[in-house]
């Protein structure tokens, strides 16, 4: 197989990792919304933790996106 073709396939496979980050982010925001609707007065106090969880989880998706980029633009 051509090396560049293999790199393109690898980049596509690496992007699958972003799906996991997507599931995680959906879980974070969904759980936050569920909790916020049950107790709206406590919701604002947890916003910082929400954003922190978002950033830490999003970074894992970015890792796989980075691998895909490095494979495509090397």
């Amino acid at each position, binding site marked *: 197989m051509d090396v560049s073709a293999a790199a393109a396939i690898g980049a596509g496979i690496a992007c699958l990792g972003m799906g996991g980050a997507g599931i995680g982010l959906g879980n974070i925001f969904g759980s936050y919304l569920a909790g916020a609707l049950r107790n709206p007065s406590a919701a604002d106090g947890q916003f910082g933790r929400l954003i922190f969880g978002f950033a830490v989880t*999003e970074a894992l998706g*970015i890792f796989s996106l980075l691998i895909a980029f490095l494979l495509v633009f090397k």
Partner: protein
Amino acid sequence: MAADKVDPIHQFQLHPIIPIHIGGLDLSFTNSGLFMAVVVIVASAFLYFATSNRALIPSRLQSLAEMAYEFIAKMLRDSAGTQGMKFFPLVFSLFMFVLVANLLGLFPYFFTVTSHIIVTFALAILVIGTVIVYGFMKHGFKFLKLFVPHGIPMVLLPLVVAIEIISFLSRPISLSVRLFANMLAGHITLKVFSGFVVSLSAFGFVGVAGAVLPLAMAVALTALEFLVAFLQAYVFAVLTCMYLNDALHPGH
């Protein structure tokens, strides 16, 4: 085709501005070094001018500086306690450096200092080095209790200690790769969408009309990148506070 000339990696290349070679070592002053100096000057000038005309009713600049101070002070006090406040200068400097470097990197033709792993790794190893040195200075060998959580059955202990040690050793890597990968991937994504605008507009009128879509996406991504620039500086500072808390109170 114009699209072939768009190289999203080109923005991260280092160019020596003042070549310095000492004994086979390449110590040239590069664009990365230049922008690091710019970042330090901008952050210092901001805090200097914000605090030079102190008033009871703060000006806009002064209230911005006070907000930054309160933000980091609260974060450090919440996660590491009042004892942690002796590390305030370290955490505040790290936060301001990363924040200003991330934000300055978003301007066109500016170099993003934090998009290079060596820069973020140096910052991360500074944090972890501080944790290790201070932990051993303050607690001696009791600092190693960090790796032995309370209430674990003896059978599981070797496994748990091994996991704790591996997780401690991977901290500088995850801390630095998180920041660097976010900056690198964000800037490449921006360049890729800008490249779509250029390559679509080569197809005449229909192409120009279609290029509006990636242009709107690039604008939205720029807004997201401003959020990410702040968030990653915040996350870096929060994790620094948590690791410093381990050095102050190693016994979980």
